[in-house]
């Protein structure tokens, strides 16, 4: 068969561009698709997405990437969850772990048993003491989850903190060695088909041209093709998620080498702390409506644990998404399709979800423009992801007790979307967690943040009362004990990295 290969053009390197290129290189038949990636060394990448979700493990193994090597080459560390500090001043910091709380007994979810025990005046610990992953995170430990389903060490998953710039470079080597051609250059213009209006080619400042049948817009916030050229409308969510700027700055490690991300609430947003092998990533995400850029910069610099390794970098963004991520023959992957603040490390996940859906729904090599049904399904799945994450992010904000700070007063009083209102009503009334199987986040995640943000249900399921209270008391005590025993002989995060994937000191200066 000498059929023409379908030319795919990816505009933009960075995490989105190279994740897309790497996946296409591995999973598309090389005799039917040709992948070209255009990027310019002069354009910086955002590279904020240094904290990830456990899903990235599946993505990497789908590409056949060796974990230890990937971690070594990206300066990665392990992440068991996120610690939230000061989101409620009256409450202790809490961890949203990638793991379970307790277990269901008699088919009744754990939180009902926990509340019932509390209501009956029995001794009961804070909910996080029934989570192995929280215990491991607090202790600064790491080890791989156990395969033994009876062990508490099997009840968690993990993700990574990584240097997004190094990850993009790692994937670039990976993709180029598998046939992706990279073109260095900047876009000057976009050629369209006169009849259909489809994108036909990119013209470069150097005068060159790159023609394609499918264009993947990984140009970041600028959204050159989907937003700029095709004019797909922006759906603004800043009334729900008011943070729209950030400062980012690296420093050296001078505090705990935590196997978790930290998100500390501040006057007009929150500060992140992400420990990598070679540095600590820090940032302040804030709302320009409530804080000046200069003040935000000062706050960040005074909060970091050691002198900055570089000048703080400003980032500007808009929370929301494009009405459609796939329009005509252009698909947006990454920030060009939408942005949700990095509070729950969802940026790289959204890239991954887009890439995995696209691989399934990519136009047939023989009929590049033939089937709008593929586009519609892609857009349906994309909407679902965004709305789910949006609701979960908002939960962190509106349930706060930071009275007297303008941002926090605003988000406490904002009108919630119906989907979130319903979820809140149900948890408040009787400790029922959101019930869905597609999209982020799991029921344990909702439980961690709901309880962590101080939302106390009025009641619990009456079915929990049918079990003998002594037996439940014993089960909970045993569970908490097993967790503590499970921590025995667990290596610290630093020890584990030394053994498994420590990067050589040189060559990590990116």
């Amino acid at each position: 068969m000498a059929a023409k290969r379908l030319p795919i053009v990816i505009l933009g390197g960075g995490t989105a561009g190279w994740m897309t290129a790497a996946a296409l290189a591995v999973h598309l038949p090389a005799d039917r698709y040709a992948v070209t990636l255009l990027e310019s060394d002069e354009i910086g990448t955002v590279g904020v997405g240094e904290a990830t979700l456990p899903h990235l493990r599946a993505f990497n193994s789908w590409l056949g990437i060796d974990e230890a090597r990937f971690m070594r080459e990206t300066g990665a560390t392990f992440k068991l969850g996120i610690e939230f500090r000061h989101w409620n001043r009256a409450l202790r910091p809490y961890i949203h772990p990638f793991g379970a709380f307790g277990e269901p007994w008699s088919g009744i979810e754990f939180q009902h048993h926990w509340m019932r025990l509390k209501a009956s005046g029995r001794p009961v610990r804070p909910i996080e003491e029934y989570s192995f992953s929280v215990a491991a995170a607090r202790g600064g430990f790491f080890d791989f989850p156990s395969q033994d389903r009876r062990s508490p060490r099997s009840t968690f998953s993990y993700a990574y903190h990584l240097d997004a710039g190094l990850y993009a470079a790692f994937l670039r080597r990976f993709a180029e060695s598998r046939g992706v051609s990279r073109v260095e250059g900047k876009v000057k213009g976009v050629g369209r088909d006169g009849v259909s209006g489809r994108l036909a080619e990119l013209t470069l400042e150097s005068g060159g041209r790159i023609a394609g049948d499918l264009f993947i817009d990984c140009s970041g916030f600028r959204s050159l093709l989907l937003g700029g050229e095709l004019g797909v409308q922006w759906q603004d969510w800043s009334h729900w998620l008011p943070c729209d700027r950030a400062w980012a700055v690296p420093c050296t490690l001078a505090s705990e080498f935590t196997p978790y991300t930290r998100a500390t609430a501040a006057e007009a947003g929150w500060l992140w702390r992400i420990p990598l092998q070679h540095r600590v990533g820090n940032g302040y995400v804030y709302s320009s409506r409530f804080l000046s850029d200069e003040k935000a910069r000062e706050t960040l610099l005074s909060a970091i644990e050691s002198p900055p390794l570089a000048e703080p970098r400003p980032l500007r963004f808009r929370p929301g998404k494009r009405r459609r991520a796939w329009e005509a023959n252009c698909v947006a992957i990454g920030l060009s399709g939408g942005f949700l603040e990095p509070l729950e490390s969802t940026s790289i996940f959204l890239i991954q979800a887009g890439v995995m859906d696209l691989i399934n729904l990519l136009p047939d090599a023989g009929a590049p423009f033939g089937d709008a049904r593929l586009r519609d399904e892609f857009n349906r799945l994309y909407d679902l992801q965004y709305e789910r994450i949006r609701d979960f992010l908002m939960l962190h904000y509106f349930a706060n007790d930071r009275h007297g700070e303008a941002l926090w007063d605003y988000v406490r009083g904002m009108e919630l979307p119906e989907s979130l209102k319903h979820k809140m009503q149900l948890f408040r009334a009787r400790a029922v967690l959101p019930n869905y199987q597609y999209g982020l986040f799991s029921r344990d995640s909702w439980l961690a943040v709901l309880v962590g943000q101080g939302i106390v249900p009025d009641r619990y399921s009456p079915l929990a009362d049918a079990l003998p209270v002594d037996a439940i008391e014993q089960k909970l005590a045993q569970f908490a004990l097993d967790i503590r025993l499970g921590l025995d002989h667990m290596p610290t995060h630093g020890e584990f990295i030394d053994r498994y994937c420590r990067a050589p000191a040189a060559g990590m200066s990116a």
Partner: protein
Amino acid sequence: MIPERRPLAEIVVVGRDVDLWLAALSLRRALGPSGPRVTVVELPSAVPAAAVTTCPPQVLALHDKLGLSEAALVHATRASYTHGQAFVGRGVDWQPFFHAWAPYEWPMDGLPFFPCWLKARAAGLAVRLEDYCVPAVAARLGRVVVAPRDDDARGPSHAGLHLETARYAACLKAAARALDIPTVDAARVTVERRADAVSAVLIDGGPARIEGQLFVDATGAEADLIGPLAGFDWVDATPDLSVDRILTARALRFNRLPPLSEVRIGPAGWTAVHPTQSFTGVMHAYSSAVTSDDEAARAAAAGADIDLEDIEVRLHRPGMRRGPWQQNCIAVGNAACTLDPVHDVDALVLQLGIVHMLALLPDTTECDAERAEYNRIMGSSLSRLRDFQLAFYRLAPAAGAFWDAGRASLPPPALESKLAAFQARGLFAPMEDDVFPAESWQAMLTGFGLRPASLPPVVDGAAMDGITKELDRRHAAIREATKRMPAHEDYLKGRASSGAR
């Protein structure tokens, strides 16, 4: 007005037959002896003499939780196992296909199975989709899928049961009696309301009355409690589900019981055949606009190929309550929703209602959040089931006025997405609260001859050789494995001896 909030002390379940007793038993089991009191008001049975209930695996799992012994149930009801429904043609041009009750995981190295099969099929492979489905192959051979290490109490994996409905209801009732659930008999009930809530049901017009704070309507399609409280969706919106009459009848038992049911597609309706150990349940569904009752009786006999007894005809009115939980009244089973009978989903609808009712059972009279969630999740799940049925009638490639009516419908948006993703690429468009899995849609849509326009590139570009080899290997392995499975009849005999103990 702030609703009055009182602890829930008394739950009254009003209804008849399977819906009543399964709901009452589930509530009583879940709440335990120290929980709120559960009282039953039992109305006269409305079960046709020859009715057979199909319990899919999900319902058997509920039985398990309730402590109902499956062996005892099979013995007492003279039940037989079923791995699914075979859709075959009678007097119409029709390619047979099998809809299994439970998909069977048989992972293929690296590549997804279904698009590989599509690819091989397009290249001339003769082996049908169902020949890669272990329960379907076993059922066609008259065998049941019993994993070597299956717990003896559980019966075959991936199987459901055909139960004579009246005996099944009697078994559930006996189990409820064993738990001392207080029961009041009533020829009819009327609802007494105070403010915005049901306060009591009046027995036979009163003065006897049963008070409660929460009422469960398990009265079946009559919907004695919820009927006056909630409107009816779908009926007017779906002239396409044109079955409005159902004939039930009894025929002789099969000599060798097949572990499946057959839906025989005829020119003016369909005839379903449900084997049990004591008789064969025959159901004929038709539209009164196309067929008279006399014609239907003849069509049923022709469809069943056998003499029929105890023929009864009842009206059928598909629809869902607009909010099956109103005020302090929760509808389950047919009181909440009546679907088309073609996919045997009555027990599934009942199970869905019971499971969600239990998960959301309030403990006080204030239950706005629980009610809103029950109505949301039931509305969503039942709509997904209805989508499956709409797709059946919309795409079934049979000729005649009855079938033409089904094809005339416009699919709702969710179904449109499902069909578009399939037709474009053979993909299953996942929806929250889907009840039937991808495998069910694949079986039905390929059974109707739908072939996707293209395949996922991963499979499209994969070498044909490797795929063919893997499919052949799998096909041979399934043939070998199913040959060693026990014959349904032998298995039932073994069950009978353990169930009688």
